């Protein structure tokens, strides 16, 4: 069973959300991916989206999911720079809609207090919280948070599960930054398939805190699956990372919404 935490529309052919979704499912089938989480709309993705842009982007995802609830779930894209709107958008798409998680990107550093109401609102309905992180030797974008900044957010909400997206890209740095925060899981998507990544993560965090994702279609499913399927870890650990951890995290909200896991 493979569930993919991290899929976008990028590189999937199609003029409409329906067409892109059909192509995404075609590739998912080739790689035996049973379910995937979809967020952000058509590229290019605005780094600091306006409320109008957020609505448009989230509507594209909602449209794509209409006929595919048995294969994919949606995360709502929010912007803490428009906090009041984002909370309403959360209610529209998640609390009262079919989405099951939150995607936070690079509009604002994630250690700032403006994220707290979003995290708390998401936790109130068991929505999964995904925060992008990178630590780039070439320099981060202005609002792009590092795993260490992410750890500050996680420390303020020790009882709320939260996912450190990309493990900071520089995973040796990222794993260390979140190691002490037991409420943090790492997403392994969207970096080179550097040998040893998942073995190190299992050693330092345990397999229960690691979640497979691809960042397809910008990345290939292949290179990201290889991080797990090629890792020198137990088959049981691979099962957890490839799907069971994400499924366990999603179980309460899927049950709440009546979705079949």
């Amino acid at each position, binding site marked *: 069973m493979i569930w993919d935490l991290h899929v976008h529309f990028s*590189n*999937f052919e199609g003029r409409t959300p329906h067409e892109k979704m059909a192509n995404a499912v075609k*590739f998912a089938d*080739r*790689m035996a991916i049973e379910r995937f989480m979809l967020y952000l709309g058509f590229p290019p993705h605005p780094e600091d989206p306006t409320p109008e842009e957020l609505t448009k982007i989230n509507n594209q995802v909602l449209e794509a999911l209409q006929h595919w609830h048995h294969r994919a779930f949606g995360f709502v894209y929010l912007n803490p720079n428009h906090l009041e709107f984002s909370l309403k958008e959360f209610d529209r798409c998640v609390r009262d809609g079919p989405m099951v998680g939150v995607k936070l990107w690079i509009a604002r550093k994630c250690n700032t207090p403006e994220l707290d109401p979003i995290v708390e609102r998401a936790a109130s309905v068991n929505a999964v919280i995904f925060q992008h992180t*990178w630590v*780039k*030797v*070439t320099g981060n974008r202005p609002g792009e948070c590092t795993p260490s900044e992410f750890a500050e957010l996680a420390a303020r909400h020790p009882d709320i599960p939260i996912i450190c997206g990309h493990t900071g*890209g*520089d995973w*040796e740095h990222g794993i260390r930054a979140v190691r002490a925060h037991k409420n943090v899981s790492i997403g392994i998507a969207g*970096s*080179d*398939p*550097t*040998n*040893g990544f998942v*073995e190190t993560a299992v050693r330092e965090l345990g397999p229960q805190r690691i979640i497979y994702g691809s960042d*397809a*279609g*910008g*990345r*290939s*499913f*292949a*290179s990201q*699956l*290889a*991080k797990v*399927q*090629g*890792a*020198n870890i137990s088959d049981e650990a691979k099962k957890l990372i490839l799907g069971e951890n994400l499924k366990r995290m999603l179980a309460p909200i899927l049950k709440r919404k009546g979705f079949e896991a």
Partner: protein
Amino acid sequence: MIIDTNVYVSRWPFRRLPGDEIPELLAKLRSHGVSQAWAGSFDGVLHEDVAAVNERLAESCRTLGQGLLIPFGTVNPMLPDWQEDLRRCQENLKMPGIRLHPSYHGYTLDDQRFFDLLRQAVEKKMVVQLALNMEDERTQHSLARVSEVDTAPILRLLPKVPGLRLVIQNRRRKPSGKLLGRLSYHGEVYFDFAMLEGVGGIARFIEEVPGDRLLFGSHYPLFYFESALLKVKESELSKAQRDAIFNGNARLLLEP
């Protein structure tokens, strides 16, 4: 059967890797049906004594490689008397080719010494592998940062080096677009896909370059070997295309 044209032995300078001991490396390759692997040395990226690097590489392949590892030597044309290194690779160590790391050796492809090296490699009938990257620029060690090699000068060089057999390894973004296609049509230029990204990447890549110019390259053990293998699965390819990528193109390239 797979011919992996992009494998390294010895130690990556910044991290120990699963598979950086040759028995473990061979076990992984054999488990996936690799029958031949073209091996460079991680030592060649930063060491200056490349003569010793090449001797160790050849010795490792000969004594530990079980007939599977084919050594590709390091030549750094910025070093004095690099010509002797090239001569030893061919005459003493019987290497069929060399692997270059211009970004780590500090030259661009419009440098006269690179041109001279290509001409001499052709005279010696050696394949030239050109590693454009070793890892993502964003995750490099902060004290060892290099940029992706700019391949634009190659197009101007190709007509001046007839007979050159050039393999571009670890391409990320460049060459792209028209240059990519022109390179493969104006000379015997091959590509691997170790760092090719995007869903269905191989199928899209062979819309830009002829299918007979694509080689299987894993960049193992720095990358998980399975990445390259799964990329072939992810793209919808004919059996003939898969066979060519897995081994046919590489076999033809090394034929005298």
